[in-house]
Protein backbone atom coordinates (compact mmCIF):
# COMPACT_ATOMS: atom_id res chain seq x y z
CA UNK A 1 0.00 0.00 0.00
CA UNK A 2 2.70 2.46 1.12
CA UNK A 3 5.01 1.22 -1.62
CA UNK A 4 2.35 2.06 -4.20
CA UNK A 5 2.02 5.51 -2.57
CA UNK A 6 5.73 6.11 -3.20
CA UNK A 7 5.43 4.96 -6.83
CA UNK A 8 2.27 7.04 -7.33
CA UNK A 9 3.94 10.16 -5.86
CA UNK A 10 7.00 9.65 -8.07
CA UNK A 11 4.85 9.11 -11.17
CA UNK A 12 2.68 12.18 -10.42
CA UNK A 13 5.69 14.40 -9.74
CA UNK A 14 7.53 13.30 -12.86
CA UNK A 15 4.39 13.75 -15.00
CA UNK A 16 3.88 17.23 -13.53
CA UNK A 17 7.48 18.29 -14.19
CA UNK A 18 7.46 16.92 -17.74
CA UNK A 19 4.08 18.56 -18.41
CA UNK A 20 5.29 21.93 -17.13
CA UNK A 21 8.50 21.76 -19.19
CA UNK A 22 6.57 20.90 -22.36
CA UNK A 23 3.97 23.62 -21.70
CA UNK A 24 6.53 26.37 -21.08
CA UNK A 25 8.67 25.28 -24.03
CA UNK A 26 5.72 25.34 -26.44
CA UNK A 27 3.98 28.46 -25.11
CA UNK A 28 7.10 30.55 -24.50
CA UNK A 29 5.61 32.01 -21.29
CA UNK A 30 7.92 33.25 -18.55
CA UNK A 31 5.92 34.67 -15.66
CA UNK A 32 8.16 34.66 -12.54
CA UNK A 33 5.21 34.29 -10.11
CA UNK A 34 3.88 31.27 -12.00
CA UNK A 35 7.33 29.71 -12.08
CA UNK A 36 7.67 30.41 -8.35
CA UNK A 37 4.36 28.64 -7.63
CA UNK A 38 5.42 25.68 -9.77
CA UNK A 39 8.75 25.58 -7.95
CA UNK A 40 6.93 25.41 -4.61
CA UNK A 41 4.66 22.61 -5.89
CA UNK A 42 7.72 20.64 -7.04
CA UNK A 43 9.39 21.24 -3.66
CA UNK A 44 6.28 19.94 -1.85
CA UNK A 45 6.28 16.92 -4.14
CA UNK A 46 9.93 16.22 -3.37
CA UNK A 47 9.25 16.47 0.39
CA UNK A 48 6.29 14.09 -0.01
CA UNK A 49 8.46 11.72 -2.05
CA UNK A 50 11.18 11.75 0.62
CA UNK A 51 8.60 11.05 3.38
CA UNK A 52 7.10 8.18 1.35
CA UNK A 53 10.58 6.70 0.87
CA UNK A 54 11.34 6.97 4.61
CA UNK A 55 8.00 5.35 5.48
CA UNK A 56 8.61 2.56 2.99
CA UNK A 57 11.97 1.81 4.62
CA UNK A 58 10.32 1.77 8.07
CA UNK A 59 7.65 -0.67 6.90
CA UNK A 60 10.32 -2.93 5.42
CA UNK A 61 12.00 -3.00 8.84
CA UNK A 62 8.70 -3.93 10.50
CA UNK A 63 8.19 -0.54 12.14
CA UNK A 64 4.94 1.35 12.54
CA UNK A 65 4.63 4.63 10.65
CA UNK A 66 1.37 5.90 12.12
CA UNK A 67 0.03 5.72 15.65
CA UNK A 68 -2.21 7.62 18.07
CA UNK A 69 0.43 10.31 18.72
CA UNK A 70 1.17 10.96 15.04
CA UNK A 71 -2.58 11.16 14.31
CA UNK A 72 -3.10 13.56 17.20
CA UNK A 73 -0.17 15.72 16.02
CA UNK A 74 -1.56 15.75 12.50
CA UNK A 75 -4.99 16.89 13.68
CA UNK A 76 -3.57 19.53 16.02
CA UNK A 77 -1.26 20.87 13.30
CA UNK A 78 -4.20 20.98 10.88
CA UNK A 79 -6.25 23.04 13.31
CA UNK A 80 -3.39 25.49 13.96
CA UNK A 81 -2.67 25.77 10.23
CA UNK A 82 -6.32 26.59 9.58
CA UNK A 83 -6.17 29.29 12.26
CA UNK A 84 -2.98 30.87 10.91
CA UNK A 85 -3.91 30.48 7.24
CA UNK A 86 -6.08 33.58 7.64
CA UNK A 87 -2.86 35.58 7.95
CA UNK A 88 -1.69 34.15 4.61
CA UNK A 89 -4.82 35.53 2.93
CA UNK A 90 -4.41 38.80 4.82
CA UNK A 91 -0.93 39.08 3.31
CA UNK A 92 -2.49 39.32 -0.16
CA UNK A 93 -4.70 42.20 0.99
CA UNK A 94 -1.60 44.05 2.14
CA UNK A 95 0.11 43.34 -1.19
CA UNK A 96 -2.90 44.85 -2.98
CA UNK A 97 -2.84 47.89 -0.64
CA UNK A 98 0.88 48.40 -1.36
CA UNK A 99 0.23 48.29 -5.09
CA UNK A 100 1.38 44.76 -5.92
CA UNK A 101 -1.40 43.37 -8.08
CA UNK A 102 -1.77 39.61 -8.44
CA UNK A 103 -4.19 37.64 -10.62
CA UNK A 104 -6.85 35.54 -8.86
CA UNK A 105 -5.26 32.23 -9.95
CA UNK A 106 -1.89 33.41 -8.63
CA UNK A 107 -3.42 34.31 -5.26
CA UNK A 108 -5.29 30.99 -4.96
CA UNK A 109 -2.32 28.94 -6.20
CA UNK A 110 0.31 30.51 -3.99
CA UNK A 111 -2.14 30.75 -1.03
CA UNK A 112 -2.85 27.02 -1.08
CA UNK A 113 0.83 26.15 -1.49
CA UNK A 114 1.92 28.55 1.27
CA UNK A 115 -0.73 27.04 3.58
CA UNK A 116 0.67 23.58 2.81
CA UNK A 117 4.14 24.77 3.78
CA UNK A 118 2.72 26.33 6.92
CA UNK A 119 1.24 22.93 7.82
CA UNK A 120 4.58 21.17 7.28
CA UNK A 121 6.41 23.73 9.45
CA UNK A 122 3.82 23.60 12.27
CA UNK A 123 3.78 19.78 12.21
CA UNK A 124 7.58 19.61 12.36
CA UNK A 125 7.61 22.13 15.23
CA UNK A 126 5.08 20.09 17.20
CA UNK A 127 6.93 16.84 16.55
CA UNK A 128 10.13 18.25 17.99
CA UNK A 129 8.66 20.39 20.77
CA UNK A 130 5.95 18.05 22.03
CA UNK A 131 5.28 18.58 25.69
CA UNK A 132 1.86 17.83 27.10
CA UNK A 133 2.65 18.76 30.67
Amino acid at each position, binding site marked *: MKKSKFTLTLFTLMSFIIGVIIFYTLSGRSNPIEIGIIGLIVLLGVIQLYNSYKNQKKIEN*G*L*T*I*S*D*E*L*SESLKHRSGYITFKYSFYVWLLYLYLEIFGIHLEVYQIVGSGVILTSFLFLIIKKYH*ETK*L*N*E*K
Partner: protein
Amino acid sequence: MKNKIKLLRVESNLTQEELSKLVGVRRETIVFLEKNQYNPSLLLSYKISKVFNLSIEEVFDFEDEFK
Protein backbone atom coordinates in the same frame (compact mmCIF):
# COMPACT_ATOMS: atom_id res chain seq x y z
CA MET B 1 1.80 11.89 34.14
CA LYS B 2 4.99 10.12 35.18
CA ASN B 3 5.82 6.57 34.23
CA LYS B 4 8.46 3.88 34.69
CA ILE B 5 8.68 2.80 31.07
CA LYS B 6 12.39 3.56 30.64
CA LEU B 7 13.33 1.75 33.84
CA LEU B 8 11.19 -1.29 33.00
CA ARG B 9 12.42 -1.36 29.42
CA VAL B 10 16.08 -1.34 30.46
CA GLU B 11 15.39 -4.03 33.07
CA SER B 12 13.72 -6.14 30.38
CA ASN B 13 16.69 -5.64 28.01
CA LEU B 14 14.47 -4.12 25.36
CA THR B 15 15.43 -1.35 22.97
CA GLN B 16 13.02 1.49 22.20
CA GLU B 17 12.55 0.03 18.74
CA GLU B 18 11.72 -3.43 20.11
CA LEU B 19 9.22 -2.00 22.56
CA SER B 20 7.63 0.11 19.84
CA LYS B 21 7.21 -3.01 17.68
CA LEU B 22 5.67 -4.93 20.59
CA VAL B 23 3.04 -2.27 21.30
CA GLY B 24 2.55 -1.16 17.68
CA VAL B 25 3.62 2.48 17.88
CA ARG B 26 6.44 4.54 16.38
CA ARG B 27 9.80 4.69 18.17
CA GLU B 28 9.34 8.46 18.54
CA THR B 29 6.23 7.83 20.64
CA ILE B 30 8.26 5.68 23.03
CA VAL B 31 10.83 8.51 23.26
CA PHE B 32 8.11 11.03 24.21
CA LEU B 33 6.58 8.57 26.68
CA GLU B 34 9.90 7.97 28.41
CA LYS B 35 10.44 11.72 28.71
CA ASN B 36 6.97 12.02 30.30
CA GLN B 37 5.99 14.38 27.50
CA TYR B 38 3.03 12.41 26.25
CA ASN B 39 0.04 10.88 28.01
CA PRO B 40 -0.85 7.67 26.17
CA SER B 41 -4.36 6.41 25.54
CA LEU B 42 -5.84 3.79 27.84
CA LEU B 43 -5.31 1.14 25.17
CA LEU B 44 -1.64 1.98 24.70
CA SER B 45 -1.12 2.12 28.48
CA TYR B 46 -2.66 -1.34 28.71
CA LYS B 47 -0.45 -2.71 25.91
CA ILE B 48 2.70 -1.32 27.54
CA SER B 49 1.74 -2.70 30.95
CA LYS B 50 1.01 -6.08 29.35
CA VAL B 51 4.53 -6.20 27.83
CA PHE B 52 6.03 -5.86 31.32
CA ASN B 53 3.40 -8.14 32.93
CA LEU B 54 2.34 -5.38 35.30
CA SER B 55 -0.85 -3.46 35.97
CA ILE B 56 -1.34 0.03 34.54
CA GLU B 57 -0.97 1.61 37.99
CA GLU B 58 2.41 -0.06 38.43
CA VAL B 59 3.74 1.47 35.21
CA PHE B 60 2.03 4.86 35.29
CA ASP B 61 1.88 7.19 38.27
CA PHE B 62 -1.50 8.91 38.49
CA GLU B 63 -0.91 10.55 41.87
CA ASP B 64 0.34 13.85 40.42
CA GLU B 65 -2.87 14.19 38.41
CA PHE B 66 -4.98 14.46 41.58
CA LYS B 67 -2.84 17.06 43.36
